[in-house]
């Protein structure tokens, strides 16, 4: 019942709500706030009194300063390169009439099923010092530098083609929502194709473009797998450096301070992004909106050049995927020689995965971790969102909502490091258990980093729910719990499942968090792939990496199909 009478006491202070609030307060304080406070203490109060010495140490550390500099070079240049490629992909697939655009789109979308450390290992297999292309080129140019694909340009190249997923989801969506009547109106008034593109179409995409550019900038700052695998000694960035410093006892304060710098930079950028988001998107004012009709490029030369460019991009995107799939069926001899021989094709690598526990263990570990984390975070956030929905505008509701969004502001490395440093001793708020080095700590890390995304999506689902459904149930006599169980939850279930599936997908090949928190006897898939990729000389290890990658792609593709495809179009809008 909406109480329209003047309120005497906060309505949310019911016994059930108070218990729930205490549980969430413990989760946020023990798993997030206290560990970060401990991290700050490590930096500024290491010897019991306030000191800026770690800053001086940072300034004196050439490696750390170089890494900082590299990150701030990589982030803006990556934003530009990803912006150019990302906009191209959207124009090719959604705006211009390009022959074979459906196939091209599939190629460009491979980053959705194949990312992180797996993707970088794929590029390294082609372009690395012992990669297919390098081996082939050495046959022609024996004196060439086999480490040509290393350093800044290699990192930039790999990341440019691995960071366009946001463009393919959000920017493409924005392009699809352009009202074609505005294009027709411009043409009717005599505007040229280029003029329409730059003055009518692209301005509509600007808010989305700005948001994805900021996300790319943050990805550049937080780069981990690419600098580690193809950066070489000459181009290391903040995150790999944090990992290295965290592994040595007397440099932990440096790791902490670097992660704080990263955190502050991310917060600043996300603040800018939310300001832009507040300005909103351009809303179509058309009464009857029409779908965009693909534009033929009238100039034949430009048309050929654009087609050529589209297919070159397609090859760059698809080559690692195709080669990984093909090489996953071949034997170690051919992998070592980087040669494809279809007569040597077999399922032996896949059988080896199933037969050897050392091979399938990382796979199982990642599946269990990702599944558990997706399930727990899903349940926690559903309960939290119900509380927020029922207590909107209340103090408790607001605290919970903003609390669960905190991890959004913090880089994964910062959270991982703070957990690692906080839980390596007994803490009263964790019931005096030492968690560092246990199986539990990574699960906690996974749950924390997935909270904001789950929160945003679940809350949107809750708030898009028609209030009348709940009113109807109550009007028919349904109590609060009954209404939630029989009416609200079944309506939300497909969305909740979709969010859990996306979380599962995202965690499956995680490297950034697990690199800090994995259990030594139970390494995750990301950690295993990274180790195997470090040593490209071991063909058996590489074969297993390919098998992992193929299975990952299949799982990701199935999950994405269920969420966004035919089965789930109504559950989750892009």
């Amino acid at each position, binding site marked *: *019942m*909406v*109480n*329209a*009478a*003047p309120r005497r006491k906060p309505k949310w202070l019911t016994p059930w709500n108070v218990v729930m609030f205490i549980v969430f307060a413990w989760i946020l304080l023990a798993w997030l706030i206290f560990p970060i406070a401990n991290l700050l203490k490590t930096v500024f109060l290491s010897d019991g009194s306030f000191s800026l010495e770690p800053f001086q140490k940072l300034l004196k550390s050439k490696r750390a300063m170089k890494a900082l500099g590299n990150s701030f070079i990589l982030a803006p240049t990556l934003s530009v390169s990803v912006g150019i490629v990302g906009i191209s992909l959207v124009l090719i697939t959604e705006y211009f009439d390009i022959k074979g655009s459906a196939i091209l789109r599939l190629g460009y979308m491979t980053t959705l099923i194949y990312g992180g450390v797996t993707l970088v290992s794929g590029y390294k297999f082609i372009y690395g010092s012992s990669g297919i292309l390098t081996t082939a080129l050495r046959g022609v140019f024996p004196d060439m530098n086999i480490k040509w694909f290393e350093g800044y340009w290699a990192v930039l190249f790999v990341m440019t083609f691995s960071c366009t997923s946001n463009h393919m989801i959000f920017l493409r969506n924005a392009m699809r929502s352009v009202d074609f009547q505005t294009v027709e109106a411009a043409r009717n008034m005599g505007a040229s194709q280029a003029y329409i593109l730059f003055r009518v179409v692209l301005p509509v995409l600007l808010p989305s473009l700005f948001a994805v550019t900021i996300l790319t900038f943050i990805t550049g700052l937080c780069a981990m797998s690419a600098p580690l695998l193809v950066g070489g000694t000459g181009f290391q960035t903040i995150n790999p450096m944090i990992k290295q410093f965290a592994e040595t006892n007397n440099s932990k304060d440096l790791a902490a301070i670097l992660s704080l710098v990263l955190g502050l930079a991310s917060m600043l950028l996300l603040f800018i992004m939310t300001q832009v988001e507040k300005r909103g998107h351009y809303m179509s004012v058309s009464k009857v909106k029409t779908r965009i009709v693909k534009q033929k490029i009238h100039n034949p030369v430009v048309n050929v050049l654009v087609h050529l460019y589209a297919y070159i991009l397609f090859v760059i995107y698809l080559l690692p995927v195709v080669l990984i799939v093909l090489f996953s069926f071949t034997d170690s001899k051919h992998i070592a020689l980087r040669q494809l021989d279809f007569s040597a094709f077999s399922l032996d690598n896949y059988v080896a995965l199933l037969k050897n526990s050392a091979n399938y263990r990382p796979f199982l570990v990642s599946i269990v971790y990702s599944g558990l984390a997706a399930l727990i975070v899903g349940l926690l956030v559903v309960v939290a969102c119900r509380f927020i929905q029922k207590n909107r505008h209340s103090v408790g509701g607001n605290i919970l909502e903003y609390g669960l969004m905190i991890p959004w502001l913090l880089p994964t490395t910062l959270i991982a490091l703070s957990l690692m440093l906080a839980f390596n001793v007994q803490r009263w708020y964790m019931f005096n258990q030492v968690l560092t080095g246990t199986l539990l700590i990574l699960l906690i890390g996974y749950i924390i980093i997935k909270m904001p995304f789950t929160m945003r999506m679940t809350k949107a689902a809750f708030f898009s729910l*028609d209030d*009348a*459904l709940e*009113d*109807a*149930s*109550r*009007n*028919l*006599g*349904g*109590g609060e719990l*009954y209404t939630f169980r*029989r*009416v609200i939850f*079944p*309506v939300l*279930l497909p969305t909740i499942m979709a969010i859990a599936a996306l979380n599962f997908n995202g965690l499956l090949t995680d490297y950034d968090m697990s690199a800090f928190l994995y259990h030594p006897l139970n390494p995750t898939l990301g950690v295993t792939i990274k180790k195997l990729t470090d040593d490209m000389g071991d063909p058996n290890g590489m074969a297993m990496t390919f098998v992992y990658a193929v299975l990952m792609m299949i799982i990701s593709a199935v999950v994405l199909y269920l969420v966004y495809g035919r089965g789930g179009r109504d559950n989750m809008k892009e």
Partner: protein
Amino acid sequence: MIYLNDIEVRFGDFTALKDINIHVKEGEFYTFLGPSGCGKTTTLRTITGFIEPAKGTVKVKGKDITHVPVEKRNIGMVFQNYALFPTMSVYENIAFGLKVKKVNKTDIDRRVKEMAGKVDLTEQQLMRKVAELSGGQQQRVAIARALVTNPEIICLDEPLSNLDAKLRVQLREELKEMQAKFGITTVYVTHDQEEALTLSDCIAVFNKGFIEQIGTPDEIYSASKTEFVCNFIGDINKLNANFTREIGAQTGKGVDAGKNAYVRLERIHVNSTRTDGRAVFKGKVAGSEYFGLYIKYQLDVNGQVLKCIDKNDGRQYLRKGEEVEVSIDPRDLMVY
């Protein structure tokens, strides 16, 4: 049956309803009519229990239910968008309230099928998902769901507002038939005056959180108590002071020219043979609108624009510029 006494509803500093006093008789079709934001839905939700008033009481059959929770009131409700549960079949939707009340399965089955029959839903339709039904069928499911638990009252919150014009008229008729069939006390919210006039036994006209007038459809239409009601219900002509004065002068009936005078369109007589007791004017046809069933004319009478209607009986209708004789009975004037 239902008594709302001195109801006041506040949302923070905003007073949404003030001094609402309503008496709905048993078996009556009672309509809350008014523009958007006037408080009609708030009043309905106060009856159903979704809103608790800051002041006043809600009584049903003499029992004070002001603080009784929604689920304990035994008042059925049909929502604006029907609020059918999308994950359930038609059968499950209708059975929902019975399941909550822990009625045994055999009885649920019997009552659901019985109710489905009464609202013309077939057994096949019962097994369908609600999204597979047409707008009209969905409305019948919503009504069946609201009625199957045998509520004392049914409240309907603009249930026809999302439908196209033709279906709206058809369902309006069905609704009236069903209400007559079930004989249940009905409280209906609408902003559509035609709906209110055709369906209701009694109408309360709301404006800015107050009730302007309560009465039968004819009282509301023909004897509007306030200027707001007079303007809100139906189309109307506002007369200027000179014109009002001339009517008074011609008929000898005292009409206060200082007040606002109105006359309904159908009370303007054009080229009538009977003019006794009426004021008569010469005028010209300034324009016309064709509505099929009737034609609406705009007449220019000494600078006063008058709208009037004439039924379309196949005769040649009036042309623009044509001279006409207009007569008005001073008893038809509504003065405020």
